[in-house]
C-alpha cells in the first residue's frame, strides 16, 4: 500500500502555484493537509502526475475576522481553528463540528478548505459551509479570482465546480448572528465519518421561528440545505408538531447512499432523529442565549 510515483512541486508564491496548475491541468493535485489525498494515493485510488504542495507559500494560514464574515485561508489546519477562540466565538457551531472530524493527529494536518475541496458527502464542514452561505475564493492564473457560493460549489461525491486550474485560497463564512446553533451526527465510532449529520441554526422571535437552517451531511451525494422559507415554517411556533413536521419533510426528501455502515432507509431515520434532537438543542441554546456550549454526537 504505497503511493504511485508523482512529481512534486513546492512553489513559494501563489502565482507560481497557479501557473503549475494551469500547465498541468487534470494531472496535478494540490497538497494542503493531505489527510484525504495521501490515503487515496496509498490505496492507489488517485494517480496524479504532479503534487503541488502549498506549504511554502507564505500567508495562507490566516483566519481573518471581517465585519460580517470570517475568512479562513487554505492552509488553516482544523486544530488551528479549534484553538482559535476568536473564530469559535464568531462561528460557534465550529465548536461542535471540529472535534468530530477524525482524530487529533488528523486535525493537526487536515485543513478546513481541503475538506471542502475534497467534497466527501459524509464530511461535516461542507454542510456547515453550505448553511453559512460560504463563499469559496478560487484563483487561477488565467481567470483571476472567482467567488463561488457554496450552493454552487458542491456538485456530487468528491466533485466540485472548481476548474482544474483553480486553487481555493480561502473560504468566507457569513457571520449572521444565530441565537442557537448546533452540529450533531451519528457515526459508528468517535471520529468516523458521519452516517448522518446535521448543522442546525435557529433564531426565534417570541418562541416562533424567525430564521432556520437545516444542513445535512452523509445523507445524499452532497450536503443538503433547507431554510425556513424552503420549509415554510417562518413564524410558526417551534412546538412538537412543527419539529415532527420538519423531521418528516426533510428526511423524506433526502436520498442517502447505502454503504457497509447503514442502509439508505437507516440514514433517513437518522436524519429525522437528528432534526428532532438538533432543533431541541438549538432551541435550548437559543433560549439560553448561549450557542457556545459544546455538545457531543450522542
Amino acid at each position, binding site marked *: 500500500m504505497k503511493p504511485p510515483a508523482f512529481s512534486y*512541486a513546492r512553489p513559494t508564491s501563489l502565482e507560481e502555484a497557479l501557473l503549475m496548475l494551469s500547465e498541468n491541468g487534470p494531472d496535478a493535485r494540490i497538497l494542503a493537509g493531505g489527510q484525504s489525498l495521501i490515503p487515496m*494515493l*496509498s*490505496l492507489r485510488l488517485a494517480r496524479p502526475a504532479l503534487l503541488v504542495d502549498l506549504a*511554502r507559500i507564505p500567508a495562507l494560514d490566516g483566519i481573518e475576522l471581517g465585519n460580517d464574515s470570517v475568512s479562513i485561508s487554505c492552509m488553516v489546519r482544523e486544530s488551528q481553528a479549534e484553538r482559535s477562540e476568536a473564530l469559535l466565538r464568531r462561528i460557534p457551531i465550529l465548536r461542535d463540528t471540529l472535534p468530530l472530524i477524525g482524530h*487529533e*493527529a*488528523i486535525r493537526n494536518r487536515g485543513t478546513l478548505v481541503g475538506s471542502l475541496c475534497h467534497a466527501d458527502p459524509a464530511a461535516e464542514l461542507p454542510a456547515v459551509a453550505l448553511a453559512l452561505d460560504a463563499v469559496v475564493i478560487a484563483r487561477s492564473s488565467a481567470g483571476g479570482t472567482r467567488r463561488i457560493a457554496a450552493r454552487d460549489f458542491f456538485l456530487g461525491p468528491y466533485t466540485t465546480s472548481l476548474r482544474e486550474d483553480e486553487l481555493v485560497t480561502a473560504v468566507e463564512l457569513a457571520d449572521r448572528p444565530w441565537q442557537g446553533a448546533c452540529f450533531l451526527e451519528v457515526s459508528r465510532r468517535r471520529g468516523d465519518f458521519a452516517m448522518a449529520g446535521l448543522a442546525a441554526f435557529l433564531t426565534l422571535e417570541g418562541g416562533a421561528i424567525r430564521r432556520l437552517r437545516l444542513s445535512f451531511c452523509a445523507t445524499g451525494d452532497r450536503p443538503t440545505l433547507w431554510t425556513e422559507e424552503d420549509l415554510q415554517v417562518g413564524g410558526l411556533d417551534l412546538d412538537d408538531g412543527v419539529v415532527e413536521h420538519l423531521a418528516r419533510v426533510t428526511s423524506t426528501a433526502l436520498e442517502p447512499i447505502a454503504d457497509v455502515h447503514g442502509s439508505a432507509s437507516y440514514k433517513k431515520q437518522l436524519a429525522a432523529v437528528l432534526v428532532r434532537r438538533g432543533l431541541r438543542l438549538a432551541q435550548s441554546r437559543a433560549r439560553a442565549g448561549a450557542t457556545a456550549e459544546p455538545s457531543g454526537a450522542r
Partner: protein
Amino acid sequence: MPHEEKALYGPDERVEIQLSVNGTPRRGAAQPRRTLADFLRDELQLTGTHLGCEHGVCGACTVMVDGDPVRSCLMLAVQAHGREVVTIEGLAGDGTMGPLQEAMWEEHSFQCGFCTPGMLIQLSHLLQSNPTPNETEVRDSISGNLCRCTGYESIVRGAMAAAKRLSDAD
C-alpha cells in the same frame, strides 16, 4: 539550515531532506512519494515507528512534528523538510524510559507492543498539554489509536499513573 530548494522534483528524483529527529539534525533523501513513516524506518533506520494500516486509521505510525502528533503514513517525507520530528526512540534518551514509559511498564499497559509507538507519542503530547487529564480525556486522546490486544483499560491506567508520577515529581 542552508539548502537549495528547487520548485519542482521529478518522480524518480531523490529530494534532499534535512530535518531534526529526536533533537538531532538528520539528512537524507527520498523520492517525492515516499511517506515520512517509510523515510524514518528505511532511510533513518528508526524502526520504532510502526505501520499498521498505511491509510491513516490505526495510529501506530503517529510521530510528533513540530510538537504536534501526526500520522507519519499520511505525510510525505518531503513535507518534513525543515521540521522537528520526535519518534518513540526520542521520548527518553539512550534507550532509557521516561516517567510515561515507566508507568506503562508498571501497569502492564501493552501486550504485543505494535500500537505502542503511536500510543506513547499521543499520550506524551496529552500529558504535556494537560498534565492532569481525567480518564475521558485520556480516552479522547487515544481514540484514534487502535489496540487489538488490551481493550485499552491498561493503557488508560498507565497514562493516569504517568500523570500522577509527573505531578508528584513537580
